């Protein structure tokens, strides 16, 4: 009798996890970072508090901000949330997973970025333009790379539909493959770039020479800013969980066994926590690159991903 509601419940659960998990993950990362740097942290919930604060604040728009500027936050948030409703986080048979396969997923993120970039240009400050230009440079190199690395996985799993990929990798065909190794490495590099972390971008800076993402959203305030911030947190969360479900999906609930879901939740939390720690280590270990080193960085990622695909065709 819960049978026909099961998919809906699952989807709802997923969306809630994404919505709430994202700020928590960011909070966790910041917390660990404070610890490693010997500072007192603002606590796990600080990002949530920020968001709720922004939501009630007044909104200020520049004089010549057009409807693009006001629409962008909604579009970005909507796209990211839909992406969140597609990536299997706790269970492989996510009903909406079939609506968009991995290529569509990348494209949905691209939509969000497209509008962010336009918003950056809309007001007509030098900062916005700079941010847009840099962001588009990064993305135009990162996007193909991410596509290539996920292609490798989908070649291995003979599918581009996420849930089948996850299912396939957990159950059927996982052997240690060189192609997957390349793909994973590439994916990590790109995930860092895409989510705007050090060494590519620094989410917590407003120095015009270094910032990329922040430069685009510089003019935002109030609830618009809230939506954008939240969306970017979700993006981090989603890339993390995407990596998890593509490269280390064990413990995720397989096709129709609801029983596994609690386990899956625990596993997910553990993995994310670990990833967070790893991320912090990277970010404290490295320093941000000069902007044109980023190109080389991403070029390398692209190369790795292509190598992965090549090696699938040649070696396997």
């Amino acid at each position: 009798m819960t049978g026909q509601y099961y998919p809906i419940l699952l989807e709802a659960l997923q969306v809630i996890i994404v919505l709430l998990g994202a700020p928590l993950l960011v909070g966790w990362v910041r917390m660990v970072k404070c610890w490693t740097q010997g500072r007192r942290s603002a606590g796990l919930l600080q990002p949530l508090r920020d968001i709720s604060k922004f939501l009630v604040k007044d909104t200020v728009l520049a004089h010549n901000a057009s409807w693009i500027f006001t629409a962008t936050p909604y579009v970005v948030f909507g796209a990211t949330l839909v992406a969140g409703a597609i990536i299997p986080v706790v269970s492989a048979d996510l009903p909406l997973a079939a609506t968009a396969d991995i290529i569509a997923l990348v494209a949905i993120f691209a939509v969000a970025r497209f509008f962010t970039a336009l918003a950056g240009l809309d007001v007509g400050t030098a900062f916005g333009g700079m941010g847009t230009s840099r962001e588009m440079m990064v993305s135009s190199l990162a996007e193909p790379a991410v596509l290539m690395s996920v292609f490798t996985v989908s070649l291995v799993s003979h599918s581009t539909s996420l849930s089948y990929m996850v299912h396939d990798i957990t159950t059927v065909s996982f052997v240690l493959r060189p192609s997957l190794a390349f793909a994973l490495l590439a994916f990590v590099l790109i995930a860092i770039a895409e989510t705007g972390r050090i060494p590519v971008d620094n989410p917590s800076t407003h120095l015009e020479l270094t910032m990329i993402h922040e430069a685009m959203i510089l003019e935002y305030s109030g609830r618009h800013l809230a939506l954008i911030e939240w969306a970017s947190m979700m993006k981090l969360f989603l890339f993390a969980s995407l990596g998890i479900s593509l490269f280390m999906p064990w413990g995720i609930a397989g096709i129709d066994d609801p029983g596994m879901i609690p386990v899956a939740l625990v596993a997910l939390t553990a993995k994310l926590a670990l990833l967070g720690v790893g991320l912090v280590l990277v970010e404290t270990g490295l320093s941000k690159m000069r902007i044109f080193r980023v190109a080389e960085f991403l070029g390398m990622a692209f190369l790795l991903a292509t190598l992965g695909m090549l090696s699938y065709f040649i070696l396997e």
Partner: protein
Amino acid sequence: MPSPFDLVSASIVAFLFISLVSAFLARHQRFLVNFSSLLSAAACLLAATGGFLAVLSGGVEAFVLPIGLPDLPFYMRLDALSGFFVTLVGLLGFFVSIYSAGYLRGFLDRRSVAPLIVFCNIFMAGMILVLIADDAYFFMVSWELMAVSSFFLVFFEDEQVQNRRAAFIYILIAHIGAILILLSFGIMAGFATGFESFRGYTFEAMRSAEMPAVWASIVFIAAFLGFAAKAGVIPLHVWLPEAHPAAPSNISALMSGVMLKTAIYGILRVGFDLASEPQWWWGGMVLVFGLFSAVLGILYALMQDDIKRLLAYSSVENIGITLIAVGLAMIFAYVKMNTLAALAMAAALYHMLNHAVFKGLLFMGAGAVLHATHERSMEGLGGLIHKMKWTAPLFLVGCLAASGLPPFNGFVSEWLIFQSFLLTPALPGRLLNLLIPLGAAALALAAALSARGFVKVFGITFLGQWRGKAGFEAVEVNWPMRAAMMMAAASCLALGVFPTHVIGWLDSVPQSLVGGGIGMTARASGWLWLTPVASERASYSAPLVFFFIAFVIGAIYLAFKARRVNVRRAPMWDCGFEKVTPRMQYTATSMSMPTRRIFGFVFSIKESVRAVARQGSLFFPEKYIYHLKVRDRVWNYLYKPVSEASFYFARRVGKLQHGRIQIYLLYSFVTLVVLLVFA
């Protein structure tokens, strides 16, 4: 109930009639504009319906027009393939005709629009004739008819020298292409039976012609290069970025939207239908050309600051993408994987359809901007979104579609192409196996870069603040133009949201060419879900994605409505630096600067900064002058040497004409002696 062929031929007659009448109505310009646009819109509808029905039924209709040479009448044939392209021509032609009704008004008091209308209708007729021609002679006639009429259209505004230059380059390359096509037809006709009695020229005879593999390959290469010259495949693309900006915008829309496709039609016709003995490397060659065109095309596009040039280069890219799919289809067809071949071909066709629509939309939008501001360079534009309340969103739709973003149509076809890459099994032949991943990589790169390019176009042109002449007020364009753009935008969305129907419709084309189809499997799990092969391989539901994004946005919007905070306007944040002027915005050039840095090796870049010193002061110059020139490397590597060589040869030959009569007599004398000795 008229048959599809009747409709199509009726449309052709209509076009020729319009052009004929317009030639005599040159006195009544204003009437002429409305009349011709209306009629040609109707004719386009006829053609589109005919083509649509032809594809739907998948049948073949043949007809012989008893003119031309008595022994070589005009053979015509309308099958699924021709039908598809006729639909393309009709559809975009319809939009453009309505657009023209508004656009041509801009010329009214400046110059006579009669030639434009006359040649435009001949152009349309020529394109459709090319598609339904069924013998080499008639094909060449219509092909050149198309080329020449468009040549006259390109330099409709003939005062500017650069327009004439563009037209010259265009017609020259087009003619060389035509000669190559003729070469391949000639070889096929030569091998066909009944050459002596003029019967060998029919495509029917060519299909059944038996020829050795070497000749077959020569046929295909010649045809491919010939058509590639028309399609603007790199390195034969140089005419394209010259001709499109030169031509009036409605014409550039047609040229880029459908004329390039007729070349692809030719490649398909020869590669899948006429040429016997296909070789494994044909597909590979097409694929490689496609890859280069896709990546280089978009890279060149990124460097442009003239909207129409940029769009033209992006057409090069999209033709490349189409060729990638075509190449895949040929490869699959060679190894007899009919379903995959059908998938790739469907992707190719779909992409052509999409490109026709969105590129048409974009060129119409560019035309609107030109119409409103008389400024082609983005550096002189900006902030138009506040002035052109309708054009801006419509143009944005075009940009989204062109960048391959869901839920718009560009994405679907790219998705299909990616699918056919990912479904590729291990192929016989190491080279092909290497090609597949590289192809996928290049395609992904091109897709991402095109997004970058269109952010630039829209952002610089419509967003920010006005960069042009102070005090200039752009005004929104008139209704017909808006209406045309709206329809185009709507079809961009429709094509993006209901892919299953489209694929079901065009399925008869791959059926007839590669003997396989994906119409059934694509709709296996309902029209909502596009599943090219099987739902567990890949699935995409455009309607749902569209719906969910819309739903989330709506939900948040309502949630915010429920508890509203007050929104106030303020001057933009100037970092405390008081005098922020529009000149401080990012420009098109500065936007694309990172790409110049990263991919600089692709272009030949001349960059210089010059300081104009202020008298009296050593340190603070009056101003800095930045000069940038980015050119195709192809010019220096391919075209300059050829032309220089021919002129050198011409000088040498000119020496023969020495002027001394004794020398001339000597020529005759020597000729005589030589002949007497050797013959």
